[in-house]
Structure formats: structure tokens, C-alpha cells
């Protein structure tokens, strides 16, 4: 069990560029969550998939952020026209159906310069 795998571990982008973050959930986990971690805001919910279907994207900044889960083995979080305030650690987590606790990945540290 390799756990939740997130790639890349670190990403540096220039302001205005696009960033795509990848998450591979644990096999058999049907729920996938994305969170953003910053020193100021702590851990903020972004979006949530269950059985690949989007369930709740209430935390997603609407204009530049999008997430997809094209198959059960990976999810992507895409940020268009990145801004310095997007700099954060983006954490993906997955869980078994009906389980309340998650397994988190190690995160992608995004730096927008």
C-alpha cells in the first residue's frame, strides 16, 4: 500500500502560468478530497469526489480552479493563471466508502513567483 500519491512534490510557476497537480488515491478508496494548506488559513476544503463524480466544490475559487477525476485511479487539480496568493500546500486525501477518516497524501507545495 503506497498510500495516497501526489505529484509533483514541489512546483514553482511564474505568475499567470498554469499549474496541474496530480493525485492517485489508495486503490479501493472511492472518495477523493482536495484541501489547501496555508499558514494564514490553515486547511481549507476545496472539492470532493465520490465514485469519480463531483459531490461538493464549494471551496473552489470559481474562476481559475478546476478539478477532475477521469477515472478511479487519479484526480487532477488545475489552476489557471496562477497568482502569488495561490502559493500553498495542496493536499489530496482519500477514504473508503462510508468511512469518516481520510488518508492524506504528502501534498504538493506550489510556489507562484
Amino acid at each position, binding site marked *: 500500500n503506497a498510500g*495516497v500519491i501526489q505529484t509533483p512534490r514541489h512546483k514553482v510557476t511564474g505568475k499567470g502560468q498554469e499549474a496541474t497537480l496530480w493525485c492517485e488515491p489508495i486503490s479501493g478508496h472511492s*472518495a477523493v478530497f482536495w*484541501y489547501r494548506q496555508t499558514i494564514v488559513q490553515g*486547511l481549507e476544503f476545496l472539492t*470532493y469526489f465520490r465514485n469519480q463524480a463531483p*459531490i*461538493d466544490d464549494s471551496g473552489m475559487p470559481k474562476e481559475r480552479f478546476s478539478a477532475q477525476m477521469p477515472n478511479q485511479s487519479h484526480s487532477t487539480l488545475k489552476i489557471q493563471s496562477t497568482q502569488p496568493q495561490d502559493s500553498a500546500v495542496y493536499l489530496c486525501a482519500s477514504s473508503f466508502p462510508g468511512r*469518516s477518516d481520510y488518508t492524506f497524501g504528502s501534498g504538493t507545495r506550489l510556489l507562484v513567483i
Partner: protein
Amino acid sequence: GDSVTQKEGLVTLTEGLPVMLNCTYQTIYSNAFLFWYVHYLNESPRLLLKSSTDNKRTEHQGFHATLHKSSSSFHLQKSSAQLSDSALYYCALSDRGTGNYKYVFGAGTRLKVIA
């Protein structure tokens, strides 16, 4: 909406002293799960404790917490702090009754244990 409050941003303790990290929450749903996650530097956040049962103590790895619905609290405690307990601790809430398993996290409390 739901909220979780962790008032202490940083708690500094001498090794051997008791630990208490405060967590209070607000929710309109009665079927809430409360969690403590611990985040060590350069690792993934991992589950430390969880509970949905009122007034029942839950324990793991020397830490314990009791969910008190009457006071909307789920404080994390340990009898004796160790240097290895230094980490970021998050309290989180999930409303099972809604069928939505997303968490609302508190701001986090950084525990620093010194010799």
C-alpha cells in the same frame, strides 16, 4: 455554517508536562464526527483520534479526547508531553448526517515540546 475553533496557535511545553489542546465547534447537525489529525514536518497529516459518541473517551498513542456535545468541545489531552509530540495538530468536524464527508478544520495548534 459549521466552524471549528482552536484558540491557541502555538503551545510551548516542557517535556513531561501535561498537554491540553482546545477544540470547540459549531454545527446544526447532531450526527457530527470530530477528529484530531497530527501533522509532523515533512509528513502527511494523519488521523490521531476520532469520535461521534457523546461523553465517551477515545484514546490512541497516549493521547485522549472526549466529545462533549453539551459544550461542543473535543479537547486533546496527554498526561506527559514528549519531545516527539512536537507537531501541528488540527481539530476537524464532519457532518455525517448530510452524507457529505468533507471536513471543516480548525486553524491548527502548533505544539512545541522543549527539554
